[in-house]
């Protein structure tokens, strides 16, 4: 058996660095953590690329935490929301960069989470013993989308105001409870400074309080069960150590993600529209963020097929049913490769992916041109 990594580190480091490392190691047990990480193996095969998407999502979440805290320094919820975001964007040094990075990271994170979810789905990573990993991941994605929805209103510009108004009309169609729920979220019959305060509390306190423990739970499960090997790959597939090999590749991917993020934030900075004016008519092309476009378009389609509240309610019901089925997939396809259920699950996944992509493109295509 070779030397322990801690011994190697001690040998490699000399003088002050070695002494500092030893001092910290004796108190925190760094070597044990490193040894544990070194023992963990990651399968390597032709689909390994998809393993990185969870890490990318996590990295983008961390970026959002850091930039979110920086934005908190200057952001003022309530009636001053717009003015504070105007100052951040146009007056405060690098304020525009922090805000752009936060907004772009949010969009990229949801995009990466979708890729991560579908790659886990098609690699059958929801099967025993990873059911809870699948469910916690889905909850995290839904929470991330609520994060996006609540954050979108905070600048309180024209687009945010009307997009939120459209967004809140969706739960309002639920019979009996719908209007009441919408009123609770809004803080009244209209979107005002009170709504911004509620969304702010949701965005910076309630959602993180829910998100972070579930994220930790998800990560613990990933560590406990390791990466799943997809069907079709040999069971004795080659593995590489998590540390340093996989971790170093992950680090490189994180650095590249950071560059993509910086490029988007710097070249396409997030703009601020005119202040929200409830008396003005909504812009012709008002629409939700891209990750809600599919559900928005499906509701529109159902609304056209079944005019009135029935259509909207039916749309919502179909969407909810789809989500429930997506949750229950581990029960429908618990076995290993080749079975009828495995094939049916794959077709279901392809169908869901196709519907999401097509309705999203259709939604943008159908927007009225304002130019």
């Amino acid at each position, binding site marked *: 058996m070779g030397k322990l990594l801690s011994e190697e580190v001690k040998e490699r480091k000399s003088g002050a660095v070695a002494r500092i490392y030893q001092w910290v190691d004796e108190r925190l047990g760094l070597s044990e953590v490193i040894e544990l990480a070194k023992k963990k193996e990651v399968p390597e095969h032709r689909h390994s690329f998809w393993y990185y998407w969870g890490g990318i999502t996590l990295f983008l979440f961390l970026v959002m935490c850091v930039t979110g805290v920086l934005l908190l320094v200057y952001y003022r919820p309530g009636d001053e929301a717009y003015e504070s975001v105007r100052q951040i*964007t146009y*007056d405060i*040094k*690098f304020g*525009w960069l922090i805000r752009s990075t936060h907004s772009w990271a949010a969009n990229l994170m949801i995009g990466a989470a979708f890729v991560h979810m579908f790659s886990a789905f098609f690699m059958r990573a929801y099967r025993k013993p990873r059911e809870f990993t699948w469910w916690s991941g889905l909850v995290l994605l839904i929470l991330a989308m609520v994060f996006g929805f609540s954050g979108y209103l905070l600048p309180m510009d024209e687009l945010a105001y009307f997009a939120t108004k459209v967004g809140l009309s969706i739960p309002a169609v639920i019979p009996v409870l719908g209007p009441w729920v919408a009123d609770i979220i809004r803080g009244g019959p209209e979107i005002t400074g009170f709504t911004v305060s509620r969304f702010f509390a949701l965005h910076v306190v309630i959602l993180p309080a829910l998100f972070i423990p579930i994220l930790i739970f998800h990560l613990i499960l990933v560590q406990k069960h390791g990466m799943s090997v997809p069907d079709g790959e040999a069971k004795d597939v080659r593995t590489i150590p998590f540390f340093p*090999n996989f971790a*170093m590749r992950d680090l490189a991917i994180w650095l*590249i993600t950071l560059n993509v993020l910086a*490029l988007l934030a*710097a070249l396409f900075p997030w703009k601020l529209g005119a202040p929200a004016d409830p008396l003005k008519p909504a812009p012709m092309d008002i629409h939700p963020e891209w990750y809600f476009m599919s559900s928005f378009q499906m509701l529109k389609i159902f609304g056209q097929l079944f005019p009135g509240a029935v259509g909207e309610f039916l749309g919502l019901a179909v969407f909810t049913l789809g989500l429930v089925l997506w949750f229950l997939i581990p029960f429908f396809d618990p076995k290993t490769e080749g079975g009828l259920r495995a094939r049916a699950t794959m077709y279901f996944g392809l169908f869901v992916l196709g519907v999401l992509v097509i309705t999203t493109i259709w939604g943008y295509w159908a927007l009225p041109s304002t130019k």
Partner: protein
Amino acid sequence: MNYPVWNVPYIGSGLVIGIVAIVHVLVSHFAIGGGLFLYLTEKKALREGREDWLKRLPGYSKFFLVLTGVVGAMTGVGIWFSIGLANPAGTSTLIHNFVFGWATEWVIFLVELSLAAAYYYTWGRLPSGVHVRLGLLYAVSSFLTLVIINGILTFKLTPSSAWLSVAGTGKEAEHFFEAFFNPTYWPSLALRTLVCISMGGVMSLVFFSRLDSEKEGEVKRGLIRWASLWLLPAFVFMPICFIWYLSMVPESQRELLSLGISTIGVGAFTQVTRLTLIAILTTATIVGVVYFLAFLYPRDFEFGHAIAVLLLAFLATAATEGAREMLRKPYIIFDYMYSNGTLKSAVGKCNEEGYMVHSPWKINEGMFESGNLRGSLVMELGRQMFLGQCVSCHTVDGYRSMRDFLYDRDETAIGNILAMMRKTGEGSPYSKFMPPLVGTDEEIDALKKYLVSLTSPSKGKGVMEVTSGERELQGIVKGN
């Protein structure tokens, strides 16, 4: 008509130059750094008796010859074509000042290309000592091309007070050396040399990352580590050289770097700041990725990683060159010629006598009758003003779209903007990065009417489509 107007729809002529130039800069810097890499690697392999390294070098020098000889040379010629079309006045000034500089560079370039070919074809045919010296000759000749072109490039930002004192008098060539060895010459040469060395390392990582980790593990380990070390000089000295460079840049231009720190407001020129941020981050990432992946785990360094590093190098080059070009705004040659070709000294004359009278396009011929503008040609005059003074940086519908800038603005608002743009210095916030708008009141009014037509619901016509006014003007000139 002396010059054609080169209007590239949607992307604009500036961006065409940018795309060609970025590829050229990347390859030409590799031509210099890679040459040095080949020479020093062969020498090191011979000295240390590394036969396995020597076996891989002919393949590398073939890759080097093809890439630099084909892509480098083609994009070099491409820059000439594109700058000549996009900014004929600026290109003409450079040629008139540096004709002997360029002639020298071309001679050295021929020597460089011949030596690169000779170096590749003589592997195993010349005694090793002679072959190494051939590599040294190549490295020196390629570096000399940088020594020359660097003088001409830096001249545009800091043409030197001696040259500026005689600019436009016909005696400019008397100050060739002051213009050539201008204030930013040395820091720029140092910066570019560091970039060349880094590019030698990056491209070598791309080439050697394809070695098989299982079968050729030891040689891969050695060569990848050696190539990684080539990024070390840039890591250590680039920040110092960058500060040195900035200290030599005129203060008015240095301010452009800080314009984008606090705002992205409409009308604020923030590109230099944003591009500089990208350049710093991508450069730091390259150093990080190369250290953590290539240097620490050379056998695991794969082709995909190397391509990622190369893409980052492409981004860093694009951002750095873009920032450097924009740092000169509103000039194409600092304090002498604006980016749309208008001479700084001609502003007053153009305002008094008219832009069209002094325009190199001479399209005013036939536009006026007894000193008065023909009523039916107002829109055509406006379009020609737009072509002459705006299209070197703006397009109608694409990059820096004029229609987007004007969106929702009525005639009064457009008139106010144009009035502000006629002012210089503190009178206009645009004067820091845009040339002053020149012309008589009648010409400015015609431009306003043309710009208003771009915002109308019918959206006006594309700037290069033949208009009825243009047909009428051609008829008048031909005497029909």
